[in-house]
């Protein structure tokens, strides 16, 4: 049974209004499902509140009305009735979703879909939720601190928050984050608790891991090796920067369900192997050597046969300003192949920095686009006629080919830029 604090009981009793009551009812059911005894207060929530695909919009139009308030009530709060949804009570942001606010037609969206998108966005802002529109809130202004209780969606952001920062969040879902925005509560389960954060599996790295592609492949391997468990990685001799952590974590969260990793001597809860494991004994010790590295590269390239690349997608997870600087530099005044499109995805706030620095213009002058809010997997949108895509992200390689039915190559950012310029895939394991 869940023990409720006075303020939680009051919300459940309806004293905060019907929406908070529905939110609390949902959170209590969720806590019971987890066999969790109490809630923790949170003032840092990242979700996709009330956002609707055209399917949800049309479905709810036929069942009780399709406006923002109805979808927030019926889908997000899993309520059987529509309730008036008030402004959020806790610091909340909206993650990725929708379409680029300028290039939506290029992405294949209709005027109707765009109008819905703009209306939803206005409603999100009206409810006091920040429009970050990114899978990387930590690059757009929401950076938690060590020990902060968060309620975040987006597996790549969750693993970054837990592992790199030492913040505390489970991989929440749309319904739990929307309920938390109204109540400031989330079940005190899993990664909110010290005992749950210790390592379970040892990953011993036996090859040098330095470039971003190597971090992506090690992450992809780690996810397969430990599934949803907590790896402790040793043998890393090169200090990873933010984009390497971003690619490693996103890959591990895609091939497995990694929500927290420790790197001995690098991440905040792993000053030593002993501290990282706590009272746990490693269930398994797994090595990552040249054979495993080769295997990951081949696996990530198993969806490619034709070397005629018609689309290059970068920015999964959303590109940092460092990556936009790199991409603009690699293009170096050259032009894309007339047969190839280049879309680089990022957040609105990073794009604004990129605009100011001239990187957006450099990419556009080459024939590419810098897009925000979404990515090809989330929007299921690729340039018209795409058959073969080139990617530098293990996560995107995991999802995109299956989701939109295209071939995919995986390589370095430079391999991808060269493919965009020549129209040919020439990538090889570096």
């Amino acid at each position, binding site marked *: 049974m869940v023990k409720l604090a006075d303020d939680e009981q009051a919300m459940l009793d309806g004293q905060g209004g019907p929406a908070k009551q529905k939110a609390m009812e*949902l959170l209590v059911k969720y806590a019971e499902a987890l066999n969790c005894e109490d809630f923790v207060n949170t003032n840092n929530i990242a979700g996709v509140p009330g956002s609707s695909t055209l399917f949800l919009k049309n479905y709810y139009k036929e069942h009780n009305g399709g406006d923002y308030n109805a979808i927030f009530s019926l889908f997000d709060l*899993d309520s059987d009735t529509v309730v008036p949804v008030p402004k959020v009570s806790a610091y909340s942001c909206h993650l990725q979703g929708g379409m680029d606010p300028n290039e939506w037609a290029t992405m294949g969206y209709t005027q109707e879909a765009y109008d819905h998108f703009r209306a939803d966005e206005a409603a999100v802002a009206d409810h006091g939720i920040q429009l970050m529109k990114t899978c990387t809130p930590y690059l757009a202004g929401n950076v938690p601190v060590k020990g902060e209780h968060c309620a975040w969606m987006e*597996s790549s952001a969750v693993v970054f928050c837990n592992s790199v920062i030492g913040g505390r969040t489970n991989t929440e*879902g749309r319904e739990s984050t929307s309920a938390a925005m109204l109540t400031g509560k989330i079940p005190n389960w899993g990664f909110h608790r010290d005992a749950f954060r210790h390592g379970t599996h040892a990953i011993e790295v036996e090859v040098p891991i330095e470039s971003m592609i190597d971090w992506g492949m090690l992450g992809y391997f780690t996810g397969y090796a430990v599934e949803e468990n907590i790896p402790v990685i040793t043998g890393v001799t090169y200090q990873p920067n933010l984009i390497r952590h971003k690619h490693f974590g996103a890959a591990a969260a895609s091939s497995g369900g990694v929500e927290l990793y420790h790197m001995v001597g690098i991440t905040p809860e792993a000053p030593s192997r002993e501290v990282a494991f706590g009272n746990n004994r490693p269930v398994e010790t797994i090595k990552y050597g040249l054979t495993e590295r080769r295997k990951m590269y081949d696996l990530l390239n198993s969806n490619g046969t034709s070397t005629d690349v018609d689309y290059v997608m970068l920015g999964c997870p959303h590109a940092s300003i460092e990556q936009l600087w790199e991409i603009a530099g690699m293009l170096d005044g050259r032009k894309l192949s007339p047969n190839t499109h280049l879309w680089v995805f990022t957040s609105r706030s990073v794009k604004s920095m990129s605009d100011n620095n001239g990187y957006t213009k450099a990419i556009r002058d080459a024939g590419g686009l810098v897009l925000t809010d979404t990515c090809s997997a989330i929007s299921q949108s690729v340039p018209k006629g795409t058959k073969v895509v080139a990617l530098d992200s293990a996560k995107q390689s995991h999802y995109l080919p*299956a*989701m939109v039915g295209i071939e995919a190559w995986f390589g370095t950012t430079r391999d991808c830029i060269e493919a965009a310029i020549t129209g040919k895939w020439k990538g090889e394991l570096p």
Partner: protein
Amino acid sequence: MSVEALTRNDTIVLHGRKVVGGVTEGEALVTHQTISGWGGINSMTGTVIETRHELRGVSFKDKILVYPGAKGSSGWSAAFHTTRLTKTAPKAMLFTVMTAKIALGAVVMRIPSMTDFDRDPLDVIETGDWVKVDADRGVVEVTKKARP
């Protein structure tokens, strides 16, 4: 009692913990692999779509889904929630690894769900077995499918 020793009329009883209450029965669909929600299933058809998944192309609609649990994107609950709207959801879920994703997904799918079993359901239940789930009482009854 081993599975091999059973004849067609034998039933096996498992005890577990209620995740979401309710009573139902149906045919088992068993996989030893975890399932991704967003990007791993098609919510319009109730079908697994993940490349390299042993259930790729298989529908879980109206089945008693027996599996280790959830993996992948945080869109898990929303993807399975949508199967409730498209009427392609499983009838019940029996799983072995608890995660925030599957707990929330079970709640919003509103289907009987159980975990923490006294015997591993993945060892006992095979695809095609008839399974009665009483999540309120924490009891699962498995009738092995007829052998050819």
